[in-house]
């Protein structure tokens, strides 16, 4: 438990509310700017919030995360460049709507459905979290080992994009190997430090994340600065009319919205997957079930509703495994978990029952951020369009400076700045080789859990590897893991066969 009492009342402090509003706005701006992602913003901010109280720090991180995921939709609609990977599906229909002169309305529609998606996920979080936490109390070392492996491997197999799956698995295992660096927590033996005493304490998660997502992103944006011209919002519609239209969409497309909310929350709750995948799955499902699939790709409101409801529902969903099992749902939540640990909070099954007030605080924060995000998103439509014109040549060097300061403040060591720089260069190489960063992030945070659970499980099971396959709960987790790993392979074979049959 942290040193400070954090409960729902903490949210009613004016200072905390101000941080919440500022964090949400910052998240929207960062998410909207192509090249700056929610992951990057949260990774840099985590150390900058070190000086804040625990309540304010966690509020800022969650606000930036949710704002960032939503903000990505604005550049997807106005520029055809997704501000964050989770809004890539939104660009398919969002930009054609802008070309039709309906960019303003589309912006308000995604704002409304992003907030509704977040709230939908929050309701499921409130219902499912106590049940999962009670269930998780039955977990032993063996199940925790499999859960950690699930987080890394599922993330590796799903987030690899057009790269082969094995590259994601390599990234995840390297992350786990990095987490083993330093003094062994069971026997006190220094591992893989190679004479560097500064590595005794291990590689700090925060500088590694700042390097991997912040520095690498900045280098990449400077390397390839695209000239983004913001489309003019031709049709001038009044704000109340656009808000009214967005709520009418809820009546028009209830199936797509509810379906996307469910998909988003479920995928968000899977360890290691997160909003990026949720939006694509929801978009694909909505298209398959639509009465007008031919409109998809040409400016379908149903399409942007599906993708944006799902990715924001996933932002609530990722907190389900995080609060109940202490396992992050995606790279950003891995960093938020690091932030919570930095302030003395260690989420997990027992933590959930011992500190229900902290869980209410998180739920309250999610609720408020979604409401504030909706208000800011609706009011600031034109301001966001102007911010998108900011040149990358100015923003990115500033990001580099923030990366340096952020990695230093975590433990006031120059060593952490060097670690950040190394991970930044490493991140660049990974991008070049199409190796995803998310599995590595999850590997670094879940590696120590896997290591300790494996060794304690071996001791408890009298050094028999069979003990990892003997318990029914372990077998269920292995089944889920096998299904998630084999599904992309089966899909690939099926697609190949289909293509072959069509060619004949």
């Amino acid at each position, binding site marked *: 438990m942290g040193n400070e009492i954090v409960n729902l009342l903490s949210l009613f402090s004016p200072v905390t509310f101000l941080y919440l509003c500022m964090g949400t706005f910052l998240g929207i701006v960062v998410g909207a700017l192509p090249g700056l992602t929610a992951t990057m913003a949260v990774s840099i901010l985590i150390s*900058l919030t*070190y*000086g*804040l109280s625990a309540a304010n720090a966690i509020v800022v991180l969650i606000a930036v995360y949710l704002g960032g995921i939503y903000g990505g939709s604005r550049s997807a609609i106005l520029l055809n460049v997704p501000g964050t990977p989770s809004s890539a599906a939104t660009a398919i229909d969002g930009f054609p709507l802008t070309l039709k002169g309906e960019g303003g309305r589309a912006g308000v529609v995604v704002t409304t459905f992003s907030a509704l998606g977040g709230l939908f996920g929050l309701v499921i979080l409130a219902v499912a979290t106590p049940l999962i936490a009670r269930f998780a109390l039955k977990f032993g070392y063996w199940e925790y080992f499999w859960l950690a492996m699930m987080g890394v491997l599922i993330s590796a197999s799903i987030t690899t994009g057009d790269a*082969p799956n*094995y*590259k994601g*698995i*390599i990234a995840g*295992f*390297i992350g*786990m*190997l990095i987490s*083993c660096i330093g003094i*062994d927590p*069971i*026997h006190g*033996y220094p*591992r*893989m430090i190679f004479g560097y005493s500064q590595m005794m304490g291990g590689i700090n998660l925060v500088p590694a994340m700042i390097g991997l997502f912040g*520095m690498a992103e*900045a*280098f990449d944006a*400077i*390397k*390839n*600065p695209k000239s983004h011209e913001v489309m003019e919002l031709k049709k001038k519609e009044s704000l109340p009319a656009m808000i009214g239209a967005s709520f009418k969409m809820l009546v028009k497309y209830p199936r797509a919205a509810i379906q996307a909310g469910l998909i988003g929350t479920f995928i968000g709750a899977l360890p290691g997957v997160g909003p990026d995948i949720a939006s694509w799955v929801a978009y694909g499902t909505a298209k398959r079930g639509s009465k007008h699939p031919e409109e998809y790709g040409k400016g379908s409101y149903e399409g942007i509703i599906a993708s944006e409801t799902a990715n924001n529902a996933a932002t609530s969903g990722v907190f389900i495994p995080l609060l109940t099992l202490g396992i992050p749902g995606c790279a950003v939540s891995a960093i938020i978990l690091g932030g919570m640990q930095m302030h003395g909070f260690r989420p997990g099954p027992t933590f959930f029952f011992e500190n229900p007030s902290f869980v209410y605080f998180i739920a309250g924060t999610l609720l408020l951020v979604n409401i504030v995000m909706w208000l800011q998103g609706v009011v600031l439509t034109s301001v966001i369009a102007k911010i998108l014109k900011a*040149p*990358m*040549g*100015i923003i*990115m*060097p*500033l990001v*580099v*400076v*923030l990366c*340096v*300061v952020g990695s*230093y*403040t975590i433990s*006031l060591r*120059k060593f952490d*700045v*060097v670690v950040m*720089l190394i991970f*930044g*260069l490493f991140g*660049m*190489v990974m991008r*070049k*080789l199409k190796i995803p960063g998310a599995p590595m992030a999850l590997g670094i945070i879940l590696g120590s859990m*896997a*290591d300790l659970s*494996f*060794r304690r499980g*071996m*001791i408890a099971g009298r*050094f028999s590897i069979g003990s990892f396959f003997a318990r029914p709960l372990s077998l269920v987790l292995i089944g889920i893991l096998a299904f998630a790993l084999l599904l992309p392979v089966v899909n690939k074979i099926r697609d190949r066969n289909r293509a072959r049959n069509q060619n004949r």
Partner: protein
Amino acid sequence: MFAFEIVVSVLCLSGFAFLFYDALRMPFPQQFWDGPGSFPAILASLLFVLSLYWLITTIVGQMRKSKVPEAEKSASVDTSTKALKREEIKRLAIIIALTILYIMVLMPLITFPIATLVYLFITIMLFTRKGWVIPLVVSASATLFVYLVFNYVLYLPMPR
């Protein structure tokens, strides 16, 4: 790209082989499986196998590509794309070199605020090409902002 993939996969192969050897040498009290080296050894061996698979797939992929007729290959990469790539590599090399210089040389030499001012001024001038007034104003105000926020709002020390 082929050469880069080969170099990285071979480096990975040798690195993971070394880490596997290093993990095996770690002492263990009862059995190897509860010792500090067990989990790193398992990971390093799996990574070695995956790197080997990466190396083989890269070579096989290249061999398949080499069967494509020469005319098709030359048509796929035009000169403008090559020039663009060269420009990208140049920009990347400059920003990496300047950042290493900033962190490893300037910061210890002339203190963080001055190093930041110099770094921002040079990088913004190079990458925006907007003369020297805008880069100077942006870099000076950003440095002052970071300095004030860290010292007087967040009470966090500056890097040395």
